[in-house]
């Protein structure tokens, strides 16, 4: 199992800061994550960028505890990831995985604490925030692609997580659906949720990022405030990526 046993203490549910220390992941003799150190704390939106195969999605999986590194370690608030703190960490995948239930039941499923009435109220509220209240009774898999991703986001946000990680959430969406997702991300940020977003889309990164972590070949080649990164990328790889040159090596 990827998680240690759940913690019993109820007040000790914090996951921030999420720290990565010397992470290495090897597949078929190649280092797809090559000695990454990283700390996610504070506030705002961190955008992880980089070309295909840079290790963005793998890094996200490592931070969530879904994947164990071959070397190094990930800690949540100084301790190893455990299942008991899962509600404090939300994750949205590129392709939403929705249960074969109604939209409302999908959100309710993510709410494991509180009484029945309390859970129903919070599920309802999460749907309203995502603008999906009129589809509450609709089977989740009957929704459109954009609605499905909004529902996945609503479900991830329903337990009021400290941190929300998103893996290219708009990769398959049209501009209107993308705008709706971005609005939800901004709303979550304004309510104090720490955001970590993996994206390919430079324009989206410019719209949302407070700081940028640029990955190339499994390494962090640059980590800087968004303004600095977009105006004057310090690394040649970052510069090439922003200029739209193809990074092939």
């Amino acid at each position, binding site marked *: 199992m990827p*998680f240690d046993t*759940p913690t019993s203490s109820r007040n000790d549910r914090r996951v921030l800061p999420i720290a990565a220390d010397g992470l290495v992941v090897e597949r078929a003799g190649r280092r797809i994550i090559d000695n990454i150190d990283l700390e996610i704390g504070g506030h705002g939106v961190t955008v992880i960028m980089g070309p295909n195969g840079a290790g963005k999605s793998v890094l996200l999986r490592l931070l969530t505890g879904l994947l164990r590194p071959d070397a190094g370690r990930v800690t949540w608030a100084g301790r190893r990831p455990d299942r*008991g703190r899962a509600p404090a960490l939300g994750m949205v995948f590129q392709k939403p995985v929705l249960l074969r239930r109604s939209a409302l039941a999908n959100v309710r499923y993510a709410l494991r604490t509180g009484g029945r009435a309390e859970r129903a109220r919070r599920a309802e509220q999460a749907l309203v925030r995502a603008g999906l209240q009129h589809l509450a009774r609709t089977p989740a*898999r*009957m929704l459109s692609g954009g609605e499905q991703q909004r529902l996945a986001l609503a479900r991830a946000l329903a337990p009021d997580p400290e941190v929300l990680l998103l893996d290219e959430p708009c990769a398959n969406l049209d501009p209107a659906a993308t705008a709706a997702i971005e609005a939800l991300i901004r709303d979550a940020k304004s309510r104090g949720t720490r955001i970590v977003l993996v994206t390919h889309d430079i324009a989206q990164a410019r719209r949302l990022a407070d700081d940028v972590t640029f990955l190339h070949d499994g390494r962090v080649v640059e980590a800087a405030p968004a303004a600095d990164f977009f105006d004057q990328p310090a690394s040649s790889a970052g510069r090439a990526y922003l200029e739209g040159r193809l990074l092939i090596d």
Partner: protein
Amino acid sequence: MQDFGAAFGDAFRLLLGFDPALMEIIGLSLRVSLTAVAISGLIGLPLGAILGVSRFRGRATVLVLLNTLMGLPPVVVGLLVYLMLSNAGPLGPLALLYTPAAMIIAQTILVTPIVAALARQTIEDMHAEYDEQLRILGVGRWGMVATLLWDARYSLLTAMLAGFGRAVAEVGAVLIVGGNINHVTRVMTTAIALETSKGNLALALGLGVVLLLLAVVINAAVMGLRSTAARSAHA
């Protein structure tokens, strides 16, 4: 040898007249097979789900074994249950041989591997899709099994129906452990075998028609379930 057409006519008269002897046999058949399928579901669904989400040494061997058990010859199951329940057998003191209970035991043994193997495949496919999402939500092993069983309910019902079709149509096991005793352990398939050998084709045909109708009902139910599942995007 009775005339074939006359036999058909007699068969439908028995059916439409709700002939008590016929109804008794059909009733016992349904009671035995439905009970066996219910017990098989209680054992086979969780077993299949656990196999579907688990990875352990020797798993491949267990799966080969399970898939092999799907094709168990009913007469062999009948023989084994007979050996267990006969006076000289380990369960002899229970005096279950030649009772409906013995038939339920035999059919449960026949059907459980079918339900478990089909459930295992269904749950494993769904698990591949759900695994990371459920782990992110902090769902543990048992919560995962419960979630998968519920979300796969339509496919699993289909597996149960397949098991029922197998149970109600088999003759070898119930004949050996039930003994085809009139008013006690005579079910549709054993009655057909007996009545045919006695030359009483009307009753045999009547029962045959009921069995065929049951097959139609089961297949219609499976299709109905599939389209319901598709309509609500459960598939």
